[in-house]
């Protein structure tokens, strides 16, 4: 409950800051925000696009949040997405199976690809205490160049920079859904995302595994003292986190898009960090945070087309809203301060707060 309030305050602060910027550049914030939300939600097709935009963000947000809970900062969601997407695309382009089985295999490939990419930093962290921030970032670039090499070499489409288009059988897009949303690119990825939210919420809150992971996150040494296998839990947490990001890649490359492009690190990987922060690292929170981001990203273009501002500024407005939204940690602090004004200000922000400091 308190987390929700904190998040809501950060969103409002973000909107105010964005509105101030609009004033700076001579546009009316009311008008701007009206168009922003119209652009995202005006008709059924735009709503579909918004949900589809949010889908990969739900996955990456979950991935980052899950690792956060174990005290790990997974910045490598982008690379894990790439490899997950690459694995799924490879399956889609090479295997000739019936649709349900093909999609199942693609999803599994995405999970394996993503978790493999997160396994290495997890192992390095557990065995040699290599900081995961560094190693996951490095893995991002390895993934970037792996895709850069593999796609043109093995799955080259009509142009050098893109893979072949996957067939309709392999696409996560469903004709029924597309029709329902009047030509939107929404796809079954959103169902997978909702499912993932439920499963992860269950793991974190209701299982021994989740309890152990959280314990490691709160205090590694205490967890070790209590007889938990810290190293195993670190690796496991990274594996699950990577699998989620990999699924995000599947949703992005075989759902929202239908080919892989080289030379691009998906921005959703980094946005996942902001989504996780805003969602206070809870699966449900992540879901709503991702949908909000989806609205912002979908609405920008329309806002931009309707009011007289250059696109760079429109993007800046969105960035500012996100920036403020991601400062929920700060607001949590202020919140705490007000509550214990007279007692000493020992902070109890939990693992997130600690992470924010380091």
């Amino acid at each position, binding site marked *: 409950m308190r987390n929700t309030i904190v998040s809501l305050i950060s969103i409002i602060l973000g909107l105010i800051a964005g509105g*101030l910027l609009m*004033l*700076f*550049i*001579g*546009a*009316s914030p009311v008008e701007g925000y009206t168009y922003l939300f119209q*652009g995202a939600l005006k008709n059924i097709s735009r709503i579909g*696009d918004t949900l*589809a935009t949010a889908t990969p963000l739900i996955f990456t947000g979950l991935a980052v949040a899950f690792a956060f809970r174990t005290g790990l900062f997974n910045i490598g969601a982008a690379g894990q997405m790439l490899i997950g997407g690459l694995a799924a695309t490879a399956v889609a382009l090479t295997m000739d199976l019936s649709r349900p089985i093909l999609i199942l295999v693609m999803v599994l490939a995405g999970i394996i690809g993503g978790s493999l990419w997160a396994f290495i930093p997890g192992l390095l962290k557990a065995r040699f205490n290599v900081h995961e921030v560094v190693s996951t970032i490095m893995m991002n670039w390895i993934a970037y160049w792996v895709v*850069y090499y593999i796609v043109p070499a093995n799955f080259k489409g*009509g*142009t*050098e*920079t893109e893979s072949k*288009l996957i067939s309709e059988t392999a696409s996560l897009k469903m004709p029924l859904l597309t029709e329902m949303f009047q*030509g939107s*690119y929404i796809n079954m990825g959103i169902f997978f995302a909702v499912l993932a939210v439920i499963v992860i919420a269950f793991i974190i809150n209701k299982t021994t595994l989740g309890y152990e992971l959280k314990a490691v996150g709160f205090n590694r040494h205490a967890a070790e003292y209590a007889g938990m296998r810290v190293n195993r839990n670190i690796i496991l947490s990274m594996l699950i986190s990577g699998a989620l990001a990999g699924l995000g890649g599947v949703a992005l490359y075989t759902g*929202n*898009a*239908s080919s892989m*492009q080289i*030379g*691009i690190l*998906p*921005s959703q990987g980094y946005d996942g960090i902001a989504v996780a922060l805003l969602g206070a690292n809870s699966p449900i929170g992540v879901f709503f945070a991702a949908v909000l981001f989806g609205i912002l*990203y*979908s609405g*920008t*273009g*329309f806002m*931009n*087309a*309707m009011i*007289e501002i250059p*696109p*760079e500024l429109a*993007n800046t407005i969105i960035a500012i809203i996100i920036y403020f939204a991601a400062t929920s940690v700060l607001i949590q602090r202020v919140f705490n301060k007000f509550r214990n004004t007279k007692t000493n200000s020992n902070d109890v922000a939990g693992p997130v707060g600690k992470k924010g400091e380091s």
Partner: protein
Amino acid sequence: MKKRKFGLAMSLILAAGTLLGACGGGDKDTGKDNGKDAVKIGMVTDAGTIDDKSFNQGTWEGILLAKEELGIQEKYLKPAGTTEAEYLKEMGNLYDAGYKFIVTPGFKFETAVFKAQDKYKDAKFVILDGNPHSGDFKPVVKDNTVAIFFAEQESGFLAGVATAVELKEGEAGFIGGMEIPAPQKFNWGFQQGIKYANENFGTNVTIKAENVIYQGTFSDSAAGGQIAAQMYDRGVDVIFTAAGGVGVGAINEAKTRAKAGDKIWIVGVDVDQYEDGKYDGDKSVILTSAMKKLDVVTLDMIKRELDGKFPGGETLTFDAKNDGIGLPEENPNLSDETTAKVKEALDKIKSGDIKVAAEQGSLFK
């Protein structure tokens, strides 16, 4: 203490907000100078920014020319990514906002335009460097769309001739962005141009395989600077860049060296990059630029649309014959002799005496 700082910061922000907000509000109306019934021309940008010294910029400058000459209302949107869905989304945004003439620069728009031309039947589309298709590369240009190509190889050829004639002897290099058709054709044309000059004008400029490099992106200007540095260290005198932002890095490296007294050059691409290569006042490292006249062509398409002569359904190629490519009018770094020789080569391309191949053949990369 902390609280006081925070309070100060907040009040500053608020004060600034009210002040600037107030002056911002004033000029709001002047922004829409072209009135409500001006024709609305929209553009969706490709990967990269609007001032990329290349595709986006060239196209956008054409639209701005049209604004000056024809009083249209202009707007560009920058998609969040480069997938078909994101391109389509921005086209839809333009369309919904009343921009029913949409220019898209780059082959990446091919499948998006293919879908858009059916979805928005009362809108017009111009795609530069590409042909709309459904993903199978069978071009389908509907009546509300024009596909435009450029003969980059001829532009590269002219730059090659200019380089060889101006330098007489030396070593040339090439930096490309991605290994995709447009930079490739520039490269192959450039090599053919140098060869032609060596054979016909008695010059002796060489180009080695190791000095023909595709960096792999159009954005990594740091890498462009490094590659250029390596080439210059290997004794290269002039580098032709067809690489967007990577080329900008190479130009900066060249400027640093030129300031230190080195005699090195860059050949620019797409637009006249002379201004970007300026150092020490009025000197520039840009020998010349192999241009694709994106601005002229874009303006031309808008003009034709306003005259009611939009060439819908056609695929047009702009080359030397219709002045769609070429070197800049003014080349302060080229001698009169070079300009004359380039003119000679240009006339021969126009008359068909010189045929510039758009394929690799025996050329490097």
